[in-house]
Structure formats: structure tokens, C-alpha cells
């Protein structure tokens, strides 16, 4: 077990280094001059002397390998600051990472409850109207671009609701505010809840669809398996068969997916965070990419990749523990 874990951690570190290298290369190939970004801010033409000052200050005239190492060090130590806003990255991460985590946790709750229950229902009534409707419904949801969904949601529950004087509980704020009103860091106050509902729903939408379908498939498979048939033949009540035998087996891949997906949601919620203005890592990194704000892109991407990697690691380890068929210790 220990060997397995160590190997996985080593492999994760290698992946992170690779990710850093890919991004470093791609962004250094970009047709943008970091010195101009630093000196310039929004589109002005700094005098040559200023560019020179900046180039020296940030060591931009060093060789590429030197810069690679220096920026890597900054990334690992979370040092460095934004070219654009000069905000230290540690602070950016401190304020934004919790917001990303909060959004992901709540989206995951939606994913789990709605996704699994829809999947179970569909599977139990296979080919019923409900099954077809949920299959079609899930397909439609995954076909709607996130930005359209988000816009329409806000327009209806925000603007339309306000202008037509819907009751207070049915109205939702248009803009996100994630910076206040959390208990224990994760439980939203009533006011905060209203800000959270829409981005969490939108973020959860696609994952929920996948969970629903995955649950349905694995349920159907498990229901057809020998031991479930045996259980039924022994006269166990249907509910007991469902909960004790079918679900338990069916849920392993589902839980696996959810675990990995959580890692994804923390950092990959770029579109959702951007359209709702949710102050998490995703919206920040997207903005930085469009501004060629290298330190922000590199450091935040690495944080996100690390979280994704760790989520994967935990899933793999716990899966290995749960399922004795998987041998640990590095067997193929």
C-alpha cells in the first residue's frame, strides 16, 4: 500500500511538472511581451526606458531556462505577483480558493442527490415514460451551452422576477458575492445561499447528467448480476435487494466519477465562474490568460492541477481499498 501511494504521488508530481512545462512553453510562444504587460496595464505605450526598467526588475531578459527555473520556484512557493494588478498570488489564492471549493462542494451535493436518484428511478422503471423523459432531459441539459443557461436563469429569476414582483423567496440575485456569510467556512447564510444557488446549479448541470446516466447503466448491470438474482430468488424484499445489493455494487463507479469530478469542478468551472462573476480560481485564471498575465496563469493552473491530481489520487487509493480485486503495490 505504501509503495502504491508513494508511486502515485511521484507520478502526480511528474504530471504537475509536465503541466507547468507545457503552459510555460505555450505562453512564452505567445506573441506578447511580458514587459509591456507589466509596464503597460491597459493598452498604453510605455516609453522605452520604462520597458527597460521593468525588463530588468522582473528578469525578463534572462535566458529561457533561467526564467523557467525562476518562475518554477515562484510557482512552487506561491511567490510572485500578477503582472497586471501586482496582487501577490498568495493573496489571490487565499481569497479565491475557498470560493472555488465552496461552489464545488455545493455543486457536488446537487450532483449526488439529483444525479443518483434520477439514475436509480430510471433504472428501476426502465423504458418507462420517466426513463425516456430523464434520458432526453439529461441530453438536452448537456446540449445547452453553459453561458446561455446562465444568462436565461438570471434573466428569469433575477430581472423578470423583480419586475413582476415575484415573492422574495423566488427571486435570486444576478451577481455572485461569495465573500461573506459563510458558517464554518462552508455553510452559507440564507443571503449567501441565494447567491450560491444559480452558479451551483449551472456548474452541477452537466455532471448531474453524467451521474444520472452512469447510475442508470451500472444499476441495470448490477441488477442483472448473479448475486442480485440470487438475493431475489431467496425471497428478499425488493427494497432490500435494491439498497443492500444492487445499489452498493452499482455505486462504486459512480462514487469514483464523483470524486474525480470534484477535482475538476474546483478548477475547471471557468465558464460558470466567468458568467456569474463568481470570485473563484476559474474566472481569475481565464481573465489572466486573456491578459497574458503569466504568473497568474501558471500558478493558478498549477494549484488547480494539483487539486485535480489529489482528488484522483484519493479516489484511486480508496477504490483500491474498497475493491479487493485491485491489487496494490504497483501490479500492472
Amino acid at each position, binding site marked *: 500500500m505504501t509503495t502504491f501511494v508513494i508511486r502515485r504521488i511521484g507520478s502526480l508530481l511528474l504530471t504537475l511538472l509536465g503541466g507547468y512545462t507545457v503552459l510555460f512553453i505555450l505562453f512564452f510562444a505567445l506573441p506578447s511581451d511580458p514587459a509591456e504587460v507589466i509596464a503597460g496595464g491597459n493598452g498604453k505605450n510605455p516609453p522605452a526606458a*520604462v520597458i527597460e526598467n521593468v525588463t530588468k526588475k522582473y528578469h525578463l531578459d534572462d535566458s529561457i531556462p533561467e526564467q523557467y527555473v525562476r518562475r518554477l520556484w515562484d510557482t512552487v512557493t506561491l511567490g510572485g505577483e500578477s503582472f497586471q*494588478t501586482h496582487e501577490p498570488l498568495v493573496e489571490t489564492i487565499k481569497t479565491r480558493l475557498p470560493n472555488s471549493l465552496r461552489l464545488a462542494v455545493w455543486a457536488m451535493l446537487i450532483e449526488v442527490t439529483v444525479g443518483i436518484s434520477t439514475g436509480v428511478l430510471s433504472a428501476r422503471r426502465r423504458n418507462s415514460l420517466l426513463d425516456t423523459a430523464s434520458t432526453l432531459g439529461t441530453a438536452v441539459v448537456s446540449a445547452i451551452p453553459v453561458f446561455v443557461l446562465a444568462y436565461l436563469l*438570471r434573466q428569469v429569476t433575477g430581472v423578470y422576477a423583480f419586475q413582476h414582483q415575484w415573492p422574495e423567496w423566488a427571486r435570486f440575485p444576478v451577481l455572485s458575492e461569495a465573500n461573506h456569510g459563510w458558517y464554518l467556512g462552508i455553510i452559507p447564510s440564507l443571503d449567501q445561499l441565494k447567491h450560491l444557488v444559480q452558479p451551483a446549479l449551472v456548474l452541477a448541470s452537466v455532471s448531474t447528467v453524467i451521474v444520472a446516466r452512469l447510475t442508470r447503466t451500472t444499476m441495470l448491470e448490477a441488477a442483472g448480476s448473479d448475486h442480485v438474482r440470487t438475493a431475489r430468488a431467496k425471497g428478499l424484499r425488493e427494497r432490500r435487494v435494491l439498497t443492500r445489493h444492487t445499489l452498493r455494487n452499482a455505486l462504486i463507479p459512480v462514487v469514483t466519477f464523483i470524486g474525480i469530478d470534484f477535482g475538476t469542478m474546483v478548477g475547471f468551472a471557468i465558464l460558470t465562474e466567468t458568467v456569474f*462573476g463568481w470570485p473563484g480560481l476559474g474566472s481569475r485564471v481565464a481573465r489572466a490568460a486573456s491578459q497574458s498575465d503569466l504568473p497568474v496563469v501558471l500558478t493558478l493552473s498549477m494549484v488547480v492541477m494539483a487539486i485535480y491530481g489529489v482528488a484522483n489520487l484519493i479516489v484511486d487509493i480508496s477504490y483500491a481499498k474498497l475493491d479487493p480485486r485491485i491489487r496494490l503495490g504497483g501490479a500492472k
Partner: protein
Amino acid sequence: MVRKRRGLYIPALLFTVALIAAACGDSKESSDGDASPGDVTTTTAARSDVCRTLNYATDAPVGGEFVDYAQLASGGDNTSFDPQAVQTLDESQITTALWDGLTEFDYTDTCNPVLKPQVAEKWEANDDATEYTFTIRKDQEFSNGEPIKPSNFKIAWERGGSAELASSYGYLMAYVKDGDKLLDGSLKTLDSIVADDDAMTLKVTLAAPNADFPAIASFPLFYPISKADYQKVGNTTGWGTKGITIGNGPYKLESATAPDSGEVVLVRNDKWKGGLTGMKRPFLDKITFKITADVESAYQAFEAGDGDDATIPSGQYAAAAAKYKNTLKEATLGTYFFDFGFDDPVVGGDKNVKLREAISMAIDRDEINKKVYEGTRTISTGITPPGIPGFKENLCKYCKTDPAEAKKVYAEWQKEGGKLTAPLKLSYNAGGSHQTVVETMQANLKDVLGIDAQPNPIEESYFKVIAKEGACQICRSGWYADYPTYGNFMVDLFGKVSIDGNNLGRYDDAKFEEAIAAAQKETDDTKRGDLYRSAEERLLNETVSVIPLNWYTGDAVYRDNIINYMTPPLGTIAWEHVAKKS
């Protein structure tokens, strides 16, 4: 100054104050499309709108919190509201609430802005406008209780021009003698600025005669800074408390979150001694500037009942005007135009004057105003907008839309041997409403002259990219005055000194240069206006190097219970007057 809008950057440039609208999806509107379609070409929707009297109610209720969704609606682009570093109109809304300058303009009559002393008591110039002595009022203090002395200006100005700070507006210090040496880092302090804290005088020697210097000194770069604050921040800057924040204006900073989300909160500054319109105390207790991702979502929030003001996104002017109080009819000192590349082999040079005339006259300014701005802007008859001292209407001969004349001139140009072999490149900063403007121009050129043109959107750093040599063939530009002087339009947009900066077309004409140099030296206001106007006529009618399209108006909506919310010509709201009925 530049106005930010979602994804679009505007150049900043010149003097500060004004650039607002240019950049982005700006616009304005009025409910009833008041630019009368009939005579588009000439002018003007309503001169009365242009010249307004800003009558602020003095008996408004005191207290309350104002929540703003209009100013910081492009969150990711925020960089600083530090007076020496601020570069966009939006961020300078905070700066001007936090500070008062040496001098300030009184816009009570918007077409006759009067420059008045504010922190200064008076100023004197020598005969050739190269040396100014400002006397500072004695009883002034910063919000932290520190007294305001002439040396507070000196350190601020030297900081503003310093190489380390690398401020966008640092070039303004080049007006001061040896200021260019600050910029290149060879000097740290200037002997040409003498601060006498006992006599309370600040004496400045300029690099060249400039009769507009007291006006230029109203710009944020020249605001005083507290020594305590300077010790903490030095020649670096950043958002919020990473920059200079202690001011002497009607409000003081209470808190600021990160630049791209959250809010900036100002509260009343009880140490403020009053403004030039006689205000002694601001009405509001508190102003909260909400930072949002883009204009569209900020406006959506306003529509959903949040906040007290917001900027109207393009496409909703008429709808917004029908529902809310707004500033759509309030003309501002902004101008929207396209430059021709001065040295461009296809459209530039003396031999292509007729081609340029034809292009300018083929463009349907009324169509653009209606489609893009829902008829809310004023079709321009020159670059410099009404409201600038020295302005005259109908300066431009080729700004009228006249397809017949355009065809005729174009035929003449062809007869003289002119020929287009490739589509013309219409460059603009991608996004927002500019695309529609360019697409309309493209269609006009095709319909009227049979000329092919190609939109050339530039996604990032537009103003940097397009200012480079050879980049601009026909390129979009826009400008909001930094301070209401004719020179702010002529020198900053077309002067040789602004090449590589806001002079996007790299206009470089000897006669024009002569005229602006003469104007800068002239201390008589009327004569100075005449000289600048002759420069503009050279630009518009002889070298035909620019296609003026329209002048900006305000573009904000606000709630019915808000009082004194007006857009002065420079676009910076007089926050001390704004009040809220509960």
C-alpha cells in the same frame, strides 16, 4: 482617459481625465432618437443638450448609502485608483471622490468651464507662460489629519513622473523642466519644482511655454499625496491600499477588496473643507462601488433591483430610457472617429487626398448612430467636441454623408491614376459595438464606391498594437478629454509627440505642428482657440486624415430617488453632490 468596457481597452493616453468613452462599447442614447434623420450631416442634435447648466440641488437629504454598479463594471481590468497611476475614467471616479486638485474646473455652464483654484488659493504665471507660482491655502488637511503643504505636491509630481512607477500619464511631467529625466530614471527629484512650505508656495518651471498648464494641473496625476502614505507605498502602486489612498477630497477610503471582485467602499471625509461650488459637506454617508465582470451583468443586476446606478449596455438605450432616469442626453467631451494611416501606401499621402475625402463622405453616420447607438449620439462635425473653449460647429468639409459627391471625388481620384488592388483594412478593438460600426462602414463603402473593405478586429492591447508603425490603415479611435482644452484633442491625438501613443494614424504634418506650437505659447484665450482651430482645419480639410463620426453623451441609468446624479463634461461624477431620498 480611457473608458473600459468588457474586454475592450482603450488607450489611455493623454491626459487623464477624459477618455472615457472611447473605448468601448460606449454609447448613449435617448429615447426618441433625437438626432434628426433629415440633416444628419450637419449637426447636431441639440445644441441645448450640449450646453447645459449643472444645477445641483443644495437642499437634498443628508445620509444614506449609494451603491454603484456603473464604474467598476469591467472587474478584471482594474489596476489602480492611485492618483498618479489611475488610467481609466472608470477608476478615476474613485480618485476624484477621494482627492481635490490644485485647480478644478467649474462646469456650472458646461460649455464655458471655468478653471478655479481649489487647494490652491491663486496662481500666477510669468509673461511667457514658462513659470507658474501656486499659493496653497493654509487650512487644508488630508483625511488622516496631515496638513497639506506645497511639498506634498512636489513629492506627488516627482512620484508621478518616476521611472519606477511607470505611470501611463507620467508623460505629463514632461511639461515640467527636466521632467523627461525623471521618466528615464536619470533624476529622482526636480529642481524645477520648488516647494516653500513656510510661504506656502509651489513654483514650477516648465520645459516649454504652455498656457494650459493650470488646466493640466487639475488632472489626478497632480493631486497631492500624504507623506505618511508615500513612506508606506513609495514609487510603487497597486489596487487599493497597495497604492496611495489617503486623500483630501469629500470622501475617504473605508475598504477595498481585490481588484477583480468585491467592492470599494468610501465614506464621508469629515476633514474636507468644501468644494468650489460652495458645498461644505457631501450628502451621502457612504458610496459602495461594486466590482462586476462586465457591463451586461452589472446592468442585469440593476434591472433586478440592485444598486443605484449602472451603465447601459449597447442595444438597450431606448429600452433603458423608457424605464429609468438616465444621462443619455447629457453631452460629454468625447469624440469617436477613425484615423487614416498618415504614411500608409494605400490611403495615405498627398496623392490620396481625394480617396480619403470619398471614403469619409461615403460613410453613413446617421445609419451608424441609429443602428449602434439608437440615435443617442451627436453626429460630429469635427474632432473637438462642443463644450471645449474655442469650439466651432461645422468645421469639417468632408464629414457630411454625401454619396453623390463621394462617387464624384472617387472617380476623379481614379482618373488621376488611383487604384485599389486589395481590400481596405478597417481595424478596431474586437468586441462591443465597434464591430457593428465597422460592418456598417464596410457595407457603405461597398454600396457607394464599390470599394472592398475587410474588418480587422484586434483582440488584445489594441491601442498598443495599432500605434505601431505601419499598423493602421484605417483604424478606430476615441477620446474623452482629460481636461477641457482644445490642446487635449489636437496635441494628444494628432501631435508628433503622441506618435507611438494616441496618435494612432501617426499623423505628422509640418503646418499642423506649427499651428499647435503657436497655440501652446499663446496666453490669450481667444487667440489660442483660433490657432488650435486652424490646426484642426488643416487636419480635417487639407490633409483629410481622419473620419469623425460622433460625439459622446452620458450612458448611465439611475434610480428615481437619486438626486444630483449628473455627468459633467469630463464624465467624472461630482460625488459630493449626489444624494439619495430614503
